C-alpha cells in the first residue's frame, strides 16, 4: 500500500500555483519550523474575487499537496466562498490523507484564512 493516494502524489510531484505574488493583496503564513511544516499563501484579489493565488511550502509530501490543492479550490472563487474552505474539503479533494497527516490540511486551511484576514485588514485601513 502506498503512503499517499494518487491525487496526493500528483499534487506533490506537480504542485499547482507555486511561487510568489509580488504585489499580493493578502499574505498569510502559518506553521513553524519546530513542527516541520510552514505554508505561505499569496492572494491577488479584484472585486472580491480571488484572481490569482500562489504558495510556498516547507514541509512533507502532504503539506505540499495540501497547499497545492487548497490554492486550486479557491482560485477564481469569490472571497466569501474561499472563507468557507475547510481542511476536510482539502483532504477530500486529495482522496484522503493518512490520519497523522490531517494536520497538514488544517495548516492549508489556516494559511488561506490568514491570507484572507490580511486582505480584509488591508482593505479596512
Amino acid at each position, binding site marked *: 500500500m502506498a503512503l499517499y493516494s494518487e491525487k496526493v*502524489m500528483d499534487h*506533490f*510531484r506537480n*504542485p499547482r500555483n*507555486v*511561487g*510568489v505574488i509580488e504585489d499580493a493583496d493578502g499574505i498569510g*503564513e502559518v506553521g513553524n*519550523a*519546530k*513542527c*516541520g*511544516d*510552514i*505554508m*505561505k499563501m499569496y492572494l491577488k484579489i479584484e472585486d472580491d474575487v480571488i484572481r490569482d493565488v500562489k*504558495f*510556498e*511550502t*516547507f*514541509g*512533507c*509530501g*502532504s*503539506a*505540499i499537496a495540501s497547499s497545492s490543492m487548497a490554492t486550486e479550490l479557491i482560485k477564481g472563487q469569490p472571497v466569501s466562498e474561499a472563507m468557507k474552505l475547510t481542511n476536510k474539503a482539502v483532504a477530500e479533494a486529495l482522496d484522503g490523507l493518512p490520519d*497523522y*497527516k490531517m494536520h497538514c490540511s488544517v495548516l492549508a486551511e489556516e494559511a488561506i484564512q490568514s491570507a484572507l484576514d490580511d486582505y480584509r485588514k488591508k482593505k479596512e485601513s
Partner: protein
Amino acid sequence: MIYADNAATTKISETAIKTMTSVMEETWGNPSSLYAHGQRAKELLEEAREEIARAIGAEPREIYFTSGGSEADNQAIRSMAAQGKKKGKMHIVSSAFEHHAVLHTLKALEKEGFEVTLVDVHEKGVVVPEEVEEALRDDTCLVTIMFANNEIGTIQPIAEIGEICKKRGIPFHTDAVQAVGHIPVNVKDGKFDLLSASAHKFHGPKGVGFLYAGKGVRLTNLIEGGAQERGKRAGTENVPGIAAMAKALTEALEGLEEKRERLTKKRDRLIEGLKEIEHSALNGAADNRLPGNVNFCFEGIEGESLLLLLDDKGICASSGSACTSGSLDPSHVLLAIGRVHDVAHGSLRLSIDEETSDEDVETIIRSVKEVVEYLRSFSPIWRDLVNGKKEFIL
C-alpha cells in the same frame, strides 16, 4: 533501484535464503523432540550457536537466540534491572541517543522506580567515557551504551567504557545491532557483559537475533514457557532463521577489512559530494563512523518530501524528520547532537553497502543536489534565509 537504507534493513543474502529453505524442507523437526529428525534440528541450532559465538569471541553457552535486536535489548536491560532491584540498586546509566528499544525500556523502568542517567553525546555524537564514569553511583546496576548509532553511524568508545564498568563491577550492555557484521566486534576486547545483535542488519533474515550474556550474568525471562535457550527464552526455536543468521554472519565477516576499506572510500566520496550543497552539514563525526553511514542536514527543506522525490528517482533512503517518524518531533538522535528542530527536519540518512557502485554514489549525489535545490526553490524558510530575514544555522 539504488538501495541506500541498509541501516533500516539489508537484503537477505543468497546463502541465507538457501540455508533457510533447506532447513525448512529437510530439517523441520522440533529441536526439543528426541527422535533423530528432531535431534538433527537441535544439531543445526547448536552449530549455529557455535558459529555465532566464534564470530564474536564468545562461548556457545553465552549466546541466546531472540526474535531480534529489540527483544535482546529488552531482555538485557530487564535482566540487569531485576538483579539490581534485589540488591536495592536501581540506577541505570545510558546515553541520550540510544535506539528506542533501549530508551523505551528505560522509560518503563523509570515508572517502576528506577532512576536513569542519560549521558550527553555532544555535537559529534560520541559518548565521553569519563562522563560515564562520573555518572556511576553506588547503586548503579547497569550501563548500556550502543556500539554504533543507527542514525548517524558514530562508533562509541565502548572498550574504554567496558573497562570502567569492569573496574567498578557494574554490568555493561551494548546494543551492537548496527555494528555486528560491519565492523569488528569481539566480546573479549569490549569487556561486555551483554550484547545485542539482529540478523536482518547483516544480510540475514528478519525476526531473528541474539543476545550475548557472559558467564555469571543472570538473565530474566521475557517469555515464560518451555525450557528452550537454557530456560531463558521459551518458544520453539526459529531454526531456519537462526541457521541462516549464522551463515549470514560468517559471510559478512569474510574479508571484512577489505570490504570496510572499499565501503569507507565510497562513503567519503558521498560525504564530499553532498558537502558541496551550500548550507548543509554532516551529522556526527566524520571519522570513527560506520563504513556505510552518511547523514546530512540540509537547511530550508523538509526530509519527507526529500525522500519521496528521491524515491521517484529510484533511491531508497531515510530521514529523521517529524513527518517520517509520525510524531511532531524530529529524531531524538539529531536533537541529542544539538541540531535545532528547524534543521533536524531536513535530514537525510544514506546507508550504503557492498552493492552500491561508484556510479550509484555519483547518481545519489546528483539526485540529492537536484531535489534539495528544487525544494528550496519554493520553501518560505529558504526565501527568508536568502533574503537575510533569518540567519542561516548551517
